[in-house]
């Protein structure tokens, strides 16, 4: 057994170390598949739990994650996904996407990981910022009323780049 050198000063974790202050993370969510929604959500949640200022930018198919109509209804398909290691033909059978989606949702729920809308609630509750891409909104003819109320704005790509100055960036 070793003893910490300086007995007069307790050895305490460095939770608020100055070198970790001011860290920012930007995550660009461009996919609308159930399986591709989670990486961004899990990393955003983890970053917020570490005190990192976190911004999510939803673009193209990623809009399905914040569109009130689709957010709770993302799907997983075997088609084009060789990582299922099943014959691709199976994925084309009617009902297979529904089955694959149900199974994935169950596996996620079994880990006590929330569904997409509730996960976004948690991220916003943790101080995360949600932004929507202007061009995607225009392409899909969507406005603020179609999106979650906690989306802070529909902004241009340049505005997002500007507001995430100095951030680390993930594209998903």
């Amino acid at each position, binding site marked *: *057994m*070793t*003893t*910490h050198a300086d*007995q007069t000063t*307790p*050895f*305490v*974790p*460095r*939770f*608020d170390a100055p070198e970790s202050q001011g860290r920012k993370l930007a995550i660009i969510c461009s996919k609308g598949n159930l399986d591709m929604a989670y990486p961004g959500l*899990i990393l955003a*949640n*983890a970053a917020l*739990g*570490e*005190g990192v200022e976190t911004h999510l930018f939803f673009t193209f198919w990623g809009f399905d994650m914040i569109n009130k109509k689709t957010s709770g209804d993302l799907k997983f398909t075997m088609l084009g996904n060789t990582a299922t290691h099943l014959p691709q033909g199976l994925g084309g059978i009617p009902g297979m996407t529904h089955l694959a989606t149900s199974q994935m949702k169950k596996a996620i729920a079994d*880990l*006590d*990981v*929330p569904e997409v809308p509730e*996960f976004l609630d*948690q991220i916003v*509750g*943790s*101080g995360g910022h949600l932004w929507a891409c202007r061009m995607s909104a225009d392409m899909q003819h969507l406005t603020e009323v179609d999106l979650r109320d906690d989306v802070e704005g529909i902004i241009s790509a340049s505005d997002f780049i500007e507001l995430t100055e100095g951030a680390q960036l993930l594209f998903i």
Partner: protein
Amino acid sequence: MPTTTIAGQAVEVNDEGFLTRPDQWSDDLGTELARLIGIELTADHWKLLHFLRDDFAHQGETATLRRVSTQTGTPIKSLFDLFPGKPAKKMAYVAGLPKPKGCV
């Protein structure tokens, strides 16, 4: 395992400073651990800390932030207000438990 002296008591800690023996913890020690990381404990803090202790005793692992929130009915935002910055780790530290392993 290194030891450090907190509130006059020698406790075993890991290389990050987290207590490694949950049985060395007490409410008094928790108060001092909180003070060392700049938190003054209120009844709201204690409710969460006692949940964490109790849950660890039953589950054998530290509750994640989501589990603390859903099981105690505390909004995530309040957890961030009570244990600012890194709530899951700070809560675990003050409760004398290992930091949570779960991702969510």
